[in-house]
């Protein structure tokens, strides 16, 4: 196994531990947990079977180098962060609705 692969697996392990802790602290729901679990498992498999993937990519007629892989990973990471941001925003929107609803009901009950 290459050093790069070991580093990759360490990074993925870090994210898996983080994911587990987020689930334990109920910061994410079950669906989100399973989505990212599958995502990081696929990433780990891709790192472990990098040689076979390289071979597959070459057989498909693409020229893949280390920098390409880094770029692909960067795109995946960006996707990850954008998606996380979208979920966070959706949760915030939900909280805003709860506040707006509570004010609407309170206004009526207080006879305002």
């Amino acid at each position, binding site marked *: 196994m290459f050093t790069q692969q070991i580093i990759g697996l360490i990074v993925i392990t870090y994210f898996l531990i983080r994911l587990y802790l987020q689930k334990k602290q109920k910061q*994410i*729901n079950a*669906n*989100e947990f399973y*989505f990212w679990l599958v995502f990081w498992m696929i990433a780990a498999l891709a790192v472990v079977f990098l040689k076979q993937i390289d071979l597959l990519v070459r057989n498909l007629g693409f020229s893949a180098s280390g920098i390409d892989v880094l770029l692909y990973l960067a795109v995946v990471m960006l996707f990850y962060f954008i998606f996380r941001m*979208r*979920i966070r925003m*959706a*949760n915030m*929107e*939900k909280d*805003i*609705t709860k506040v*707006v*609803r509570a*004010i*609407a*009901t309170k*206004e*009526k009950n207080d006879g305002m």
Partner: protein
Amino acid sequence: MKKIFIIIPAYNEENNIIKVIDDVKNVNTDFQIVVVDDCSTDNTYQLANKSNIIALRHIVNRGQGAALKTGTEYAIMKGADIIVHFDADRQFLAGEIKDVVKSILNNQADIVFGSRFMDKKSDIPWLKKNIIMPLARLVNKLFFKVTLSDPQAGFRAFSTNAYKKLEWQQDGMAHCSEIMHNAFRSDLRTKEVPITVIYRDFGQKFSGGFKILKDMFIGKFTR
């Protein structure tokens, strides 16, 4: 006697709101009407508030699904037995409320959806009738196991007991699909009745369908 609450979400409906309220009052004076103004920029709230009904106001625009939920939860708090969702743009006929609530009153259904695609004739725009609705019906059937003839039925009634199983999280237009999905995946007794829809504008567009799917997808990952 069962307490029936009519929930009317409204956004910039100053030209229609009084007429809708009067129409509903004329059907049955015992109906409790709750108008939820979703932060209109016109006089919708002021007009509703003067109409001797319950008028609630969102201080920030949150969408139709959110307004319906505000009204529904308020009605339940006030002892409602049956909740009816009704539009403020005069596209539904108030006289048909009795058809929608009938099966719930007779204890034959827990939730009743109005359908534009049954016996009664609605003047549905061609694109909507022949392209958008069949596609929406297919999506509902494939992804949500919903087999209703009207994939975007906004005129509905349900019993207060059913609300726990129906409770929707979607603030926008996706609440409609979510309510159907929740109804079909639970053990609630569902029913469809024919209703008439008078089109005053096109309503939900093709792009709206994609937004609903996107909102439903994102909703799967939220708290």
